[in-house]
């Protein structure tokens, strides 16, 4: 029953959600809305679980003096400071907004901005025309890189009465080969998701229950 119960529940809810998609019946619509509300409540609760898990992980790290345990203090102090600031001064203006605008946002932006340097260095080292496939990737990458900035529209000329620039070639790469590959992947993913969903509903796929006893 420990395993049969959840499998039965998954079957009933899965079938209900499947049927409601194809019927305008108000009863199924009510069930659908109810499940969506439950889903939001469950997701909200995962935030509490996530916060508790974060605190436990870092307090244990400090207790056991694991590698870089000092940084765990930064995490815990940061978490406490934001929560307290929001509780005491609310989220409109005050220290909470100040910390968000002047600490969190610049730190996030900085971390992402570092990518420009890493990508520049990594692409210089990795983009070598060693094989035919690598050469194709190199050319396509170079064309798209130039085509996605205004300078790409300035490089080119007239071929057979048609204005061909790096930007137009980049657009072709994005609209034809890229599109074909992406559609192929999407169809594969879609079919895979459908197959997995059916397997879960029918109780064939039960790995979501964890390891069997």
């Amino acid at each position: 029953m420990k395993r049969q119960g959840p499998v039965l529940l998954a079957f009933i809810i899965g079938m209900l959600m499947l049927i409601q998609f194809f019927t305008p019946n108000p009863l199924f619509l009510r069930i659908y809305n109810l499940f969506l509300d439950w889903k939001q409540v469950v997701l909200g609760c995962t935030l509490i679980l996530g916060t508790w898990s974060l605190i436990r992980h870092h307090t244990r790290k400090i207790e056991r003096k694991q590698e870089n345990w000092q940084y765990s203090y930064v995490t815990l102090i940061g978490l406490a400071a934001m929560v307290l600031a929001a509780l005491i001064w609310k989220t409109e203006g005050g220290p909470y907004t100040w910390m968000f605008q002047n600490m969190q946002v610049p730190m996030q932006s900085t971390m992402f901005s570092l990518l420009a340097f890493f990508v520049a260095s990594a692409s210089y080292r990795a983009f070598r025309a060693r094989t035919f496939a690598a050469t194709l990737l190199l050319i396509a990458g170079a064309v798209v890189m130039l085509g996605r900035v205004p300078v790409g529209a300035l490089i080119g000329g007239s071929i057979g009465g048609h204005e061909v620039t790096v930007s137009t070639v980049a657009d072709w790469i994005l609209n034809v080969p890229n599109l074909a590959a992406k559609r192929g992947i999407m169809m594969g993913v879609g079919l895979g998701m459908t197959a997995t969903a059916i397997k879960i509903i029918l109780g064939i796929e039960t790995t979501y229950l964890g390891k069997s006893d």
Partner: protein
Amino acid sequence: MAFYDRMMKIDRRIIYLCMTLAVALPLIAPIGMPVQVSDETRGFYDHIEDLEAGDIVLFSFDYEGDVMAELNPMSIAALRHLFRQDVRVVALTTYAGGTGIAQGILERVAAEYDKHYGTDYVFLGYNPDWSGTILRLGESFKATYPADQFGKSTREIPLMQEVETYDDIALLISIAGSALSEYWAIWAGGRYGVTVVSGNTAIQAILIYPYYNAGQIPGFLGGLKGAAEYEKMVGKPGLGIKGMDAQSVAHLLMLSFIVVGNIGYFLSRRHEARLKRE
């Protein structure tokens, strides 16, 4: 070390320094690269241009601070375009870190056009379940968001009296640093028939093409370039156009390094082949 070896092994600190200069100098002394408007951007612009005064748009800030340099110019330009046309805005964010960003932009642009909270725009805030939010809004906005970002009941907000489901939304705009635009198009667009246009980071924009070509997202802004094109169309140059020079020079620099590395690689191979022959 042979010359070609040096070409292949440029110190990464030199690359970092060159990249810093390539980004910073054009921002300090702009070159003024001409910006040509793409069809994708025109599609985004036209869908907002076609709105009538009083229409209601759902505006989703699907990003956080990491990608704000790329996406904030889009959000600002789009809100200016909307408020200029007296279109009303119901905004939300699917990211916890997006609340401060969205609130700041909404207040700033609303002040520029003398728009008032509650009647001209509303900020519903953040809901942790983004997939449930997208689907549930199709059934009831007020049930999904019983209160706005500031804790006020949505039943008491004048603008929200006119919004019950997606049927009351003339256009949905998703400015996203992730796949959220795709989900808005699939669920809100596919299931509830609302028209979705998007603004995306350059990386994400590549994934939007299938939806654009299928008409599921009839217009989108791709990266900072898209933002610059859109700013040009709206007639309010901002950070997007400013950033185009820096991005152009940075891309040219990266290509230059790649070319140098490959020349070094070919010279080294030629040298190795010659040694083998000898």
